[in-house]
């Protein structure tokens, strides 16, 4: 069990067939991934219920509603219930995030997942591959530049959603920061837009997971990914 860490590859000859197991996701990543999936789903749905109490970013009088959120997407039943959900799972989300970031830096995992200046040059070829069906650039690291970019952006979004959330929760206590971000109404809009960013990421993320199949999905649960053909050790999603 020692030295067992992400990126480790193990070759196993099983019934005359070579199987390559890759330890893709360390336990803390799997744990925080699913805690995040749960709390983010609850936060988004209860957030939509809270937003429905005043679905506008402008004046109260005259009130111009922007959108009518279908009740199936909302959680909490009414404003008070939704706030209870939101203010419970915000703690799960925040503590999960702190735990994740701490372990990212403590274990060196950040080198695998964070988009760094050296990744910029790899971004465009990957975009061309994903969106314009151009040939796939060779896979050198665990995650390609576009994946790193998406994962890094979504971590920043997470931090921003917590900051704007705290500002909405305590706009008087943090009135100067609210002022810097354009006032209470705009902070509400920023908080809403981070949610839109999450929805965009989640949609793309789920599409990629479906495209890469069951074995890839399983690795975020058990940690290991099975590669039968070891001539092409590419890992995705």
């Amino acid at each position, binding site marked *: 069990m020692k030295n067992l860490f992400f990126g480790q*590859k193990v070759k196993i000859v099983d019934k005359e067939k070579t199987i390559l197991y890759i330890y893709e996701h360390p336990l803390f990543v799997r744990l925080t991934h699913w805690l995040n999936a749960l709390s983010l789903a609850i936060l988004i749905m209860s957030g939509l219920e809270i937003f429905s109490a005043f679905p506008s970013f402008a004046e109260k009088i005259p009130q111009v509603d922007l959108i009518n959120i279908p009740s199936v997407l909302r959680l909490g039943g009414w404003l008070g219930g939704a706030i209870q959900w939101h203010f419970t799972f915000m703690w799960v989300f925040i503590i999960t995030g702190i735990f994740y970031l701490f372990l990212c830096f403590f274990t060196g995992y950040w080198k695998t997942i964070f988009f760094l200046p050296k990744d910029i040059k790899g971004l465009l070829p990957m975009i061309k591959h994903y969106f314009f069906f151009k040939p796939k650039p060779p896979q050198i690291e665990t995650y390609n530049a576009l994946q790193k970019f998406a994962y890094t952006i979504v971590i920043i979004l997470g931090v921003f959603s917590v900051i704007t959330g705290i500002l909405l929760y*305590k706009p008087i206590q943090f009135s100067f920061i609210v002022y810097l971000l354009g006032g209470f109404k705009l902070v509400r809009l920023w908080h809403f837009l981070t949610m839109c960013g999450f929805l965009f990421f989640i949609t793309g993320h789920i599409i990629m997971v479906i495209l890469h199949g069951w074995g890839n999905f399983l690795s975020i649960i058990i940690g290991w990914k099975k590669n039968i053909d070891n001539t092409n050790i590419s890992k995705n999603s």
Partner: protein
Amino acid sequence: MEKLQPQEHVKEIQKLAMSKIKRRELLKLLPIGAASISLPLFNESLIKQGLSFSDWVSETLYNPNQLAEVFTDSQVTEFKKFPYNTYDKDDPEVDLENWRLSVEGLVEKAGDYKLEQIQALPKYTQNVRHICIEGWDVIGNFAGAKLADFLKMIGADSKARFVEVICADYYYSSYDMASCLHPQTLLCYEMYGKPLDRGHGAPLRIHMPTKLGYKSCKYLISLRVSNILSKDKGFWEDQGYSWFAGI
């Protein structure tokens, strides 16, 4: 490609990678799975605890010296765009002539107070933001006596923990003492330079820019200082809103 592990290590891993260990690995995620499945079963108490915990953190970290932002007269929302926001009706038909504020509890001078007695206290005017739990906000012009001055006048025990109020429309709420002593917490009898109109809580309301709007009770008729919170904490609070509601 990376070097593969030595043979002995591989054997160790081989066992691990096989189905048994997969099951064990799956078990590690079981608590989360179980939690998400059972959430609907105990969500009521769980999420109420979560809100209470958030309230506790809010009250612990509350800075009594943090002032709400004040605005210039030109930034104030027009009077006609300041909503009449009531839970029942805009006018509970308070008899303004014979109105008294009944004061009881941990005070030296319990009794009924006339509006003139409150107006005799130093008057403060402030343009502050009024934020509703629904998400809208307006900047209003409020004037009145500091609640802290009134509590001093009635000889309230400033070490008491709570202030509870009852309103003519049967609305009710309660506050932590620290928020009542905040310099911007007003016993408000004027808005926009005119005596409170009936929709805004004539003749006397509380205005607390440091709390959400539902804590700024209108049509006050009774105020009580106490150390024990009544089981009726507030009209909305009893239905599930935050009790502290500090912003």
